[in-house]
């Protein structure tokens, strides 16, 4: 009887697991319960850097994410852009992942509108070019090598913001929000070859890969997934924004996944003991 129970637990139909995870994710979204989010030093380093820059400084915020990763990175992109525009920093952006160009253009345009920023004066969107490694190297020489014209087909030299801006050395820092393996190109080329001050915003699943670069000083800050976005929203004084609301779902889902791991292991050991006896 005892063994039969644990065998049933071990053989639990996966659809029950799907149902529990579905409810654990969905119900917190409806309840709007907010959970505390602790601020980590790697996220506050990004905030501190942008916050310390004088008004009018040019920063680069290249964004490479698509619809599949927008849940994590779009809130992060919005928070970083809101911080930049609220501080009157000028933003140059690219989108070197083809699926995300439209999303990136949208988030940049809409956030700029929120702060009444003008295109070509306060921000510039260079758009997409294939072969991100070569584009990143080329921009290290001159933005115009890869992008003689911007996303909208306007010549870069005719945009007032781009006067005197030729390459990374004319920007204060780069905050790369990226869901692809192209992050490595920014580290190797923008930072390694051209010495650009670089920070990263990546999905949670790849964030652990970049702590090594944080500790070696190759990047000055790191935002990982929705948690990183939620931290940044709190730092800019917007704790009611989307990433913080979604953190409730993430927290509850984490708890249930851990409970599943514990139950799965309990069933495994109970069945193993029964088999041995």
């Amino acid at each position, binding site marked *: 009887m005892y063994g039969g129970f644990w065998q049933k637990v071990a053989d639990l139909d996966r659809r029950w*697991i799907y149902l529990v995870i*579905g409810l654990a994710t969905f119900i917190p979204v409806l309840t709007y319960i907010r959970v505390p989010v602790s601020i980590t030093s790697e996220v506050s380093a990004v905030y501190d850097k942008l916050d310390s820059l004088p008004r009018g400084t040019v920063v680069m915020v290249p964004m490479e994410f698509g619809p599949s990763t927008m849940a994590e990175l779009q809130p992060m992109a919005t928070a970083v852009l809101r911080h930049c525009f609220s501080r009157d920093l000028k933003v140059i952006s690219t989108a070197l992942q083809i699926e995300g160009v439209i999303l990136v253009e949208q988030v940049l345009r809409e956030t700029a509108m929120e702060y009444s920023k003008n295109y070509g004066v306060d921000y510039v969107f260079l758009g997409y070019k294939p072969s991100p490694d070569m584009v990143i190297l080329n921009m290290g020489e001159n933005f115009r090598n890869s992008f003689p014209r911007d996303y*909208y087909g306007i010549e870069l030299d005719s945009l007032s913001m781009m006067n005197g801006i030729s390459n990374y050395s004319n920007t204060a820092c780069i905050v790369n929000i990226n869901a692809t393996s192209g992050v490595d190109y920014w580290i190797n080329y923008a930072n390694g070859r051209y010495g650009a001050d670089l920070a990263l915003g990546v999905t949670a699943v790849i964030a652990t890969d970049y702590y090594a670069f944080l500790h070696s000083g190759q990047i000055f800050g790191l935002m990982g997934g929705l948690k990183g976005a939620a931290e940044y929203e709190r730092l800019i004084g917007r704790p009611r924004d989307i990433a913080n609301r979604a*953190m409730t779902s993430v927290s509850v889902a984490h708890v249930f996944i851990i409970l*599943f791991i514990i139950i799965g292991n309990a069933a495994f050991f109970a069945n193993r003991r029964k088999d041995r006896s």
Partner: protein
Amino acid sequence: MRREVPLTIVFICGAFMAFQYFVPHYASATVYEYALNWTTIISIFTLAVGIGSLVNLHSDRIARRKPTWRYSIVTLAALAFMTILGVSSPDALSNPTGLFMKVYFYILSPVQATMFALLAFFIASAAYRAFRAKTLLATLLLLSAVIVMLGRVWVGDMLTGWLPEGLRFSYVANYILDFPNTAAKQAIYIGVGLGVAGTTLKIILGIERTWLGGGK
């Protein structure tokens, strides 16, 4: 000649790119910028190769009525539809009310987001069935995963808030990410880096020739 010419081109290009990194002369910088532009242009042609390969693969599946051949029709139809839509309207990417953008926002975007969101369900199911503390290493991995998962959300501090700071899940999670994780990753990156440098040197010098194809 079929082997010597590509090998010579690779040697010259590889040796030059290594040389110019250390010689920031105007001439080498100019050639370097040209080389970067050429590479970008060449990579654009790989798009054509990719599309050709996709069309060939799916046409073959349809012609031979292989399993899932109906999905191949959808793939090819979608490829043709989006290409025609994009090429026929010059403002496809800037007109938010156009059909191209509507297809992107109301079909492609939800489909991709849904596919990625399904991962949470698969991870939960896989964790339940496969994440077992069978050995010491598996137990360490499991404990690390649980601590980092809890430490990254408020539940970790709620459960261990009464403990000294150094024993709280959030602190231990950061410790795991900062030290054991970083040490292991750096070792891997150094190994990979040395491997890449060694392989690159072998390719430039023509010792490694498998990229030429043509058998063993």
